[in-house]
Structure formats: structure tokens, C-alpha cells
């Protein structure tokens, strides 16, 4: 096997590891509410989420993968070193912010990495301005839509169930949380796995391993979904508590409203081909349901950290990727 193909195989493996850790890190978002309300045990909840992460491979399209592949940077500047540098930028930034405890988005880090490496290679003309602008707008739009939709849903639910016995409300929403967790995991699986698919597909396309037309091969779709599902499966209970209990205290009906609204926002973004942060979107949903009780019920520090993460992530991961590319170019 020639060394060029081995190098591409290595980059594909790095991309899948990035995808695995995305699932590992985000397992908490998918199952926190069903676990904290004791609808499922931690083990059952993680299997439930991982199953729907994988099922999302079928029938939800590859619009986000196409955006990552063709809509962020010009394909004629892409090569193996650029993709590897972009992944290094995203991974290093994820590790740094994990150490700092900053709730950053792997998706934004990947986009920043792609843009930074492309600028280091070919200047600012290599970046597709309109694509980056659209994605940047959704960094704010997506959690805000999660917030708005979750607020409406939480208000409607509290109005409808105001005269029902607490035991009935518990019974209904314990069942509905299974549904909302499943739909959220579908959204998380499809939007996040497609980012890795886009990176792998554009790497294969630009190195001549795909034929004349850009598309996402089936093996790429299945391996990206398998990686994120395995990551969720191994993410486990240790990091589950943060999301469900970190922002505001959740009851089963709150959990349902936050998850359903966030899932709808993520699936919507997926259908219009925009990569979004699933973590920030569900954080917006949780803040929405917390706000319907009273604004002081929300730990606003989490929201402030999220805004800091919005501002820092793309430039910082871009800078790391740019430096990584300048180093990689010498070899």
C-alpha cells in the first residue's frame, strides 16, 4: 500500500476519533433528563441514546456534510495536510476548553479549524464568506430558537396540566421523555456525525479517491454514525449530571419541553444544511424552561460561559489549525 493512501487512512481514523469523542462528550446532553428523572437507569439511557445516534444514519440526508465539504472553504485548496491541521485545531481547542470547563462546541471548532488552515495555506480568498456567515449566524440562532420553542412548549404544558394530579403528570411525562430523548439523539446523531462525514468526503474527493462528483459514500455515513454511537455508549453516567442539573432543576415535563424543542431546532438546522452546536441548543432549551418558572431559577453563569465560547471558538481553533498547517507544510 502506498504511503499516500496510508496517510489518508490515518486522517480518516483521526476524524472518526474526533467523532467518537463528540459522542462521548455529548452523551450527557442526550440522556441527562431521562436519568435525572429516573425514567431510565444510566446504562439503559446510554444504550437508548446510542441506538438513536446510529439510526439517524438512515433517511435524514447529508445536507450538513455537503455544507462542511463544499460550503466553508474552496475545495481546490484542500489537501491531506489541511484537513489534518483542521482536525488538530479542533481537537486541541476542545481539550484546552475541556480543561478550562468552558462549554465550547466541537462543531464550531471544526469549522474554525477548516477556515484557519485554509487561510494559512491560501489566504482569506480560500474561505467561502457567505457559508461561514450563515454558520456563524446559526451559532446564535440555534440556541435562541431552542430557548424560544422550549419556553412556548413549557408554558403550554403547565397551562394544560395545571388541573391534573401530580401522579398523572409524572406518568405522562415519564413516557414522553423516552420519545423526546430518542428524537434528540436522532438530531444529535445526524447533525454531529455529518460534520465528520463532510470532512472525510471532501478529503476523498480532493485527493481523487471519489470520482468526478462530490458525494458522501455509504461506508462514510455508516462509520461516522457508528463512531458517534460508540462514543455515546462509552460516555456513560459520569458526565450525565452536568447538563440536566447544571443549569436549572428539571422536572419530567421540563425535561420533555427542553428536549423536544431542542431536537426540533437541531433537526430543522440539519434539514437546511447548517452545522450547529447540539450542546448549545439544548442549553438554550433548558434555559427556556427554567425561565418560565422565574429567571433567577437559571444559573446564568452557564449562559455567560456559552457566549464567551461563541466568541472565542472559531478564531482560536482557526489560529491553532493555521499554526498546525504551517508546521505540517514543512514535512
Amino acid at each position: 500500500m502506498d504511503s499516500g493512501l496510508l496517510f489518508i487512512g490515518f486522517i480518516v481514523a483521526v476524524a472518526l476519533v474526533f467523532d467518537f469523542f463528540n459522542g462521548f462528550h455529548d452523551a450527557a446532553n442526550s440522556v441527562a433528563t431521562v436519568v435525572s428523572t429516573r425514567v431510565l437507569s444510566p446504562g439503559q439511557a446510554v444504550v437508548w441514546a446510542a441506538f438513536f445516534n446510529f439510526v439517524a444514519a438512515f433517511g435524514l440526508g447529508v445536507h450538513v456534510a455537503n455544507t462542511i465539504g463544499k460550503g466553508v472553504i474552496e475545495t481546490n485548496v484542500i489537501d491531506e495536510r489541511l484537513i489534518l491541521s483542521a482536525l488538530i485545531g479542533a481537537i486541541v481547542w476542545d481539550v484546552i476548553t475541556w480543561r478550562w470547563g468552558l462549554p465550547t462546541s466541537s462543531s464550531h471548532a471544526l469549522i474554525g479549524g477548516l477556515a484557519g488552515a485554509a487561510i494559512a495555506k491560501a489566504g482569506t480568498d480560500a474561505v467561502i464568506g457567505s457559508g461561514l456567515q450563515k454558520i456563524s449566524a446559526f451559532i446564535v440562532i440555534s440556541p435562541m430558537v431552542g430557548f424560544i420553542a422550549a419556553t412556548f412548549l413549557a408554558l403550554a404544558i403547565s397551562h394544560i396540566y395545571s388541573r391534573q394530579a401530580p401522579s398523572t403528570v409524572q406518568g405522562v411525562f415519564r413516557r414522553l421523555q423516552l420519545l423526546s430523548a430518542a428524537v434528540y439523539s436522532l438530531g444529535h446523531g445526524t447533525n454531529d456525525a455529518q460534520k465528520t462525514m463532510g470532512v472525510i468526503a471532501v478529503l476523498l474527493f480532493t485527493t481523487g479517491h471519489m470520482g468526478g462528483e462530490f458525494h458522501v459514500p455509504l461506508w462514510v455515513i455508516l462509520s461516522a454514525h457508528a463512531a458517534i454511537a460508540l462514543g455515546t455508549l462509552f460516555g456513560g453516567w459520569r458526565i450525565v449530571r452536568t447538563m440536566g442539573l447544571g443549569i436549572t432543576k428539571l422536572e419530567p415535563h421540563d425535561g420533555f419541553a427542553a428536549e423536544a424543542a431542542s431536537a426540533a431546532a437541531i433537526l430543522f438546522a440539519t434539514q437546511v444544511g447548517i452545522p450547529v452546536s447540539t450542546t448549545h441548543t439544548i442549553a438554550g432549551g433548558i434555559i427556556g424552561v427554567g425561565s418560565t418558572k422565574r429567571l433567577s431559577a437559571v444559573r446564568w453563569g452557564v449562559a455567560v460561559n456559552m457566549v464567551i465560547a461563541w466568541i472565542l471558538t472559531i478564531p482560536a481553533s482557526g489560529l491553532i489549525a493555521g499554526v498546525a498547517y504551517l508546521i505540517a507544510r514543512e514535512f
Partner: protein
Amino acid sequence: MREILREVALAVITAALSAAILAPTFLILKLLIDIGVYDAALPAVVGFGLLLAYVLRRETVGR
């Protein structure tokens, strides 16, 4: 058994109702995007979100 059936029926109705509540939010956003006004989508969503937060703040004071 009767209570369980009642809870399942309520769950189905609530799920349908949730879809009916969520759909208009996304239809409006899709409409904004389809007519190519990305520039308008951001201030519209943020403005509405802030307005909603303001209303909630007024409504929930003292709770």
C-alpha cells in the same frame, strides 16, 4: 390498567400538541431562510428571544 391507558392517551395528545406548537416557530424561520434573508433571521430571532425574556421577567417577578 385504566389509569395507564389514560396516561398513554394523554401522552399521545401532548406529543401531537407539542408538534403543533413547535411547527409554526420553524415554519417562520424556514420562510425567512427561503426568501434569502439570513441577515434578517439573526436579528429577528435574537430580538424576539430578548422580548420573550423581558416578558418572562415581568411575569415571573416575585415567584
